[in-house]
């Protein structure tokens, strides 16, 4: 009895330790070639950091990832000479994108990653490949017409996100409900416990187009911010960043960008946006 108990305790510790060891991750392979261009040509492999809970953009079902961000990742990989079998996707959430790039756990981040000055200090951005804007998702019968109409209403967003922050500072009359994921917000909207969900229009469109919510919600269609989505690489990888912008330029003209859109977000009927190559970052 005593021995089995000891064994159980030892087992529990071993389990805890191995779980902790997993968190460390391995960065083998990223040592020799620091930039993504070098790594792509030597290893024929790249790790992409993507979202896993945003329908239409980056959604994980089983082990497969689908969405517009994924298609963009494929375009980048192709442009760098990495075959589709060499692409590995790793789920990133908003809070760990910078650390993942810095530590080399992912090579490239394509995860609804808004370019801003604070992030530019630690990450080099290619793109933007899409300019989203904050918008509202409301029930089809709702009378909310824009952010000004939110006074006294309950608005839901993800805690700590830029859209949530904007509601707090610019639209103080609205009551802000925050969850740790948009799926919960949309569930609360379906239950009628919040009046609107707010984040980037492109993300909302993805939820509105989901089968189980078909016809229930509409996107108001009044952007009240600009969120240029960038492609993040390591801060010192100027070469990789320039290469990404070149690939995007090609994609804008050869139709692969439009194809990526049509295969994912375009399914809900929205026409592909223009990829404005004059707005691309200078990678400095």
């Amino acid at each position: 009895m005593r021995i089995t108990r000891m064994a159980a305790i030892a087992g529990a510790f071993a389990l805890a330790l191995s779980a902790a060891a997993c968190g460390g991750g391995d960065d083998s392979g990223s040592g020799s070639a620091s930039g993504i261009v070098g790594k792509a040509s030597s290893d024929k492999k790249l790790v992409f950091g993507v979202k896993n809970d945003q329908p239409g953009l980056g959604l994980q079902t089983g082990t497969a990832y689908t969405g517009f961000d994924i298609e963009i990742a494929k375009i980048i990989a192709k442009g760098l000479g990495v075959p589709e079998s060499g692409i590995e996707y790793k789920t990133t959430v908003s809070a760990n994108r910078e650390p993942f790039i810095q530590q080399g756990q992912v090579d490239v981040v394509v995860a609804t990653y808004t370019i801003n000055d604070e992030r530019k200090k630690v990450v080099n951005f290619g793109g933007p490949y899409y300019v989203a804007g904050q918008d509202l998702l409301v029930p089809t019968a709702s009378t909310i017409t824009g952010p000004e109409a939110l006074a006294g209403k309950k608005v839901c967003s993800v805690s700590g996100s830029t859209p949530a922050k904007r509601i707090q500072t610019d639209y103080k009359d609205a009551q802000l409900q925050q969850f740790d994921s948009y799926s919960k917000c949309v569930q609360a909207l379906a239950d009628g416990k919040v009046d609107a969900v707010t984040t980037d229009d492109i993300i909302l469109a993805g939820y509105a187009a989901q089968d189980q919510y078909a016809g229930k919600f509409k996107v108001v269609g009044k952007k009240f911010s600009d969120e240029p989505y960038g492609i993040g690489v390591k801060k010192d990888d100027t070469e990789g960043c320039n290469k990404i912008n070149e690939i995007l330029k090609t994609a804008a003209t050869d139709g692969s960008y439009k194809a990526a859109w049509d295969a994912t977000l375009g399914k809900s009927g929205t026409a592909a946006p223009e990829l404005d190559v004059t707005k691309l970052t200078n990678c400095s």
Partner: protein
Amino acid sequence: MDVFTDPDNIETYTTGFLWILKLTVAAAVGSGVLGVLLAGMRVSPVPVLRAFGTGWVNIFRNTPLTLIIFFCYFGLYSALGLELADDIDLNNFWLGVVGLSVYTAAFVCEAIRSGINTVPVGQAEAARAIGMSFLQTLRLIVLPQAGRAVIAPLGSILIALCKNSTIVGTIGLMESSSAMKELINANGDAVIPIFLVFAGTFAVVLIPTGYFFGWLSNRLAVKR
């Protein structure tokens, strides 16, 4: 590294920890009362009460707190319509307190019950011999001694409760871990310093708490 000089960020930080404090205090009171009641039930002579106490402990001690808190919002509030306050933050706060209390009460109950086992049977028998009822025995003889024996474990539960209260962030209260996420999201260049400040605050508050309970348990120990 100028994250913590911006007054807005400091306010985010302080409100975050203020919520943690409020959650901890409210849930400590709730789970304390509930835990003692449950412990009483588990040692009572009434089979139905004993079964209820055992059932409570087994259900809530073995359910992940995240799920309990999630249920408080989407089950109690969203589906069953239990609204505890008009204000959205206060409502989430009280839903969180309910979740934390029912969960922690299971642990408090077991701690107290283990304390009851340290009280010599003779004490209860003597109480019975002078004609006390079960409730009188429990209230006047057994619980005061049992409580003093389990000060240290109760302290551990309080510390766990304080850290657990960050889970209420998942239903939208801007407690410290949500506040940390917000700061990290807005200041991608200072992830590690922000993390260290938040983790450090917990350590600075909780380490002395642990020592205090250690001291208190020595001081109040029943000398036998």
